[in-house]
């Protein structure tokens, strides 16, 4: 075991101080050491996207970063998406459009979509497809995920 490092990060606005083994992935730190288990692991080698979180508002694979690298960073996960009792438009759209079955890939898709819609609120359908092809879903066949994210995009745009 290598020497622990003390880091401080915020997850969904809450501060966490963790003494980490440098080899712990950010995903493991978020899940096992900060107790936020909404972020899932589907492959731990960067392909499935289930672990996608926002690091300083940018979607990234949390299995491909070490927790120690998140020192001082602002992390956002699925747990922080809703505003109190109020669902995020993406969460609503996922439920309305049946964009999830088992729900295992859902947090990753939600965070990926949140990141891209915040960065590019006017993103075209085609570019959105490109971004959404970053993550894998084994249940839905994707059609409803695409529908949901488009619906949320349109709603978020209308709401300004």
């Amino acid at each position, binding site marked *: 075991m290598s020497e622990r490092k003390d880091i401080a990060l915020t997850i969904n606005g809450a501060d966490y101080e963790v003494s980490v083994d440098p080899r712990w992935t950010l995903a493991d730190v978020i899940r096992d050491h900060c107790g936020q288990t909404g972020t899932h692991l589907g492959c731990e080698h960067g392909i499935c996207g289930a672990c996608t979180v926002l690091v300083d508002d940018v979607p990234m694979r949390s299995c491909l970063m070490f927790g120690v690298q998140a020192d001082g960073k602002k992390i956002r996960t699925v*747990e922080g998406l809703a505003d109190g009792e109020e669902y995020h438009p993406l*969460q609503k759209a996922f*439920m309305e459009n049946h964009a999830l079955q088992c729900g*295992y890939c859902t947090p990753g898709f939600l965070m990926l979509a949140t990141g891209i819609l915040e960065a590019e609120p006017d993103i075209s359908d085609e570019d959105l497809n490109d971004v959404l092809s970053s993550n894998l879903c084994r249940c839905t*066949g994707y059609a409803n995920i695409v529908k949901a994210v488009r619906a949320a995009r349109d709603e978020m745009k209308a709401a300004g």
Partner: protein
Amino acid sequence: MATATNKMLGHLGDSVERLEDPPLVTGKGRFVGDINFPHQLHMRIVRSPYAHGKIKSVDTSEAKAHPGVVAVWTTDDIEDVPPIDFREGSNPTLALFRQYALARELVRYVGDPVAAVFAEDPYTAEDASELVVLDVEPLPALIRADDPPQDFKGQATTEAAVVEQGYGDLEEAFSSAYKVVEIEAKVGRHTGVPMECRGAIGRYDASRDVLEMYGAAKVPHRNRDTLCRMLNRPASGVHLFEGHTGGGFGIRGELYPEDVLVCVAAMRLGRPVKWIEDRQEHLMAANHSRQQIHKIRAAVEEDGNILALDDELYLDQGGYIRTHGTRVANMTTGTLPGPYRIPVYRSICHFRLTNKTPAATYRSPGRCESTFVRERLMDEIATELDLDPVAVRRRNLIALEEMPWHRDLDVLGDSVEHDPGDYAGLLDQGLEQMHWDELQKELAQRRDNGEMVGVGLSMFFEKSGLGPSDGAKIFVDGTGHIEVVTGGASLGQGFETAMAQICAEDLGTDYRRIRVVHGQTNRIDYGVGAHASRATVLTGTAVSKTAQAVRAKALEMAAELLQTTPDALDITDGVIHSKDNPSGPSLTLGEVAEALAPTSPSRGDRTPYLAGEEWFNIDHQTYPYGHHIAVVKVDGETGEVEIEKYFIAYDIGRSINPMMIEGQLVGGLAQGIGGALYEEFTYSEAGDPQSVTFADYLIPTLHEIPNPEILLTEDFPSIRTPLGIKGAGEAGITGALAAVAAAIDDAIGIPGAIRETPISPQRLKKILSERA
């Protein structure tokens, strides 16, 4: 039943939002990886790097000495634990081929568990697992099921079983044939690969002498029974708990070596033991499926009428026989005739072990494979007789007037009894919706302009609702909230919502007031779980019967309190009121529940509680049916296949929530396209698996998956169930391999070119260059 004025949601046939969704979109799901117990240990499996070999020694000393390691086990440490048994009970002829939780004497595939490390955290467990030293004398690996069988432990050969089914006089049929049409067809090795890897936590409560396993799925009750048998414990002392499950598709939730290990370890080490599979393990340890080679011939008449089918197949079972026994062989041979008459039939399955990951069921087991083979054969018959492929199918479809159609075949212990359906009628509807004739013309024109485009059709029948029976319990509390306890299971398909909708319909309440329990063996003694598309059919009907009984009890009690008769009353949105005077005196379900409380004076001598338990028995499975149509474009230079359009027609009998059914079909199709074009477990000659990462096992992304058109009909409710429901879990995948293959044939203008899946660009390119 519902009146126009009520605002309650969730009747049968309504596409309501799912009860399952809120926790899942907010990160509050409880998947097995999310569950932790104080003081838990983490297990890591040491797996064989050899495809086949004799174990000479397993040295665990260095691993044991590693800081943070509590124990390291080999098979010697669990000598008393028998091999993992079959779900349907012991089976002496297959017993020899079962897998031990840790390999004994031999390793039989790369990934075979050899040792288990128990440590304080997963990182340490993995570190220590690398220190286990394995001495194995390699043996030749058998990697093709159609190669000659080898010796198995000096007591048998690797041909573990020959499963044969059939009826009628083959010889006569073939001797009177106008022509014999013969093909060989191969289905590649692929499987479910849910997005959540497997996981299990064993916990032993010595104070109550209760063993618990978390992370159960699919068939928790059956697995409890098997565990009880293996560990010699009573059912009251073993509980399995299903939490959220990240997809199953037939492979998740079987009883695997790791499940047994966490249970045994929890008891012996006295601490909870958690195991979370990683993806690399998953791809070499969880059940594979599908791989079959068929040699099939048809005796046909000049007009395409099929007199007989004669099929011989080799099923590549992998290293051991797991919980299913020979189920896939049974389903393949039992369903191959499909929706066609086929007066004479025989199928012989050589069920053979090889040195690969063990295989078992994957969504639409047996049907996906046999549909590919049969439909490829139908196309070949059309080619050889110079007939239209649609016409050949029509010529052979079982007609509505002939239903129910009995076939002397066995599918999971049940003879095949097609319940009424208009196969040809649905085909007409499908072809019309797809503008079949215009489509043909349009594609022909595009081909004339140099494009490689084509269309393919495949027809199939499905099976669902495997019996014999299931029960359900319903309890209404004093606040009018309802709990439905089932022995079902949910792997993401919306089981809770479906059960709640069924219950709501009969009980006259909003589906959101209903909580559905599944997969908890301590809540109900019996359960069929979720497989073979049986949950909705069987458990759903049991829920409906129970809800009706509870309704009757509620109305009877309410009638006394409201001084009227039960049949004068109705229930709307949880309120019992007079049919004639809905705004008159009324009682809520909660109030009636209070009136039926054990201490309530108004109860009289009625059994306490507004509750019930009923059972449903089904005499035969139900057989929904449908077809797939694929339109593809081939890039002749790269061999790439693009699916331009896809269509699924399916008769569901009666749909509970069409949105969820379409979701099942679309999701199934994505897996079907994966199997048709992308996904494959390949092995080197030495038996090394080559698809153990997500960079090699290609699960399609949304770029590769079309958004299909779906025609969901309810023309023929099943005659086997009071609600008329048939299953929907598998129809999205069943016809996919065959339809895509046929479309590619058409696109490249080479009938019968595609006889093997997956159709990789390289394979297709080779076919095209050989032709050029």
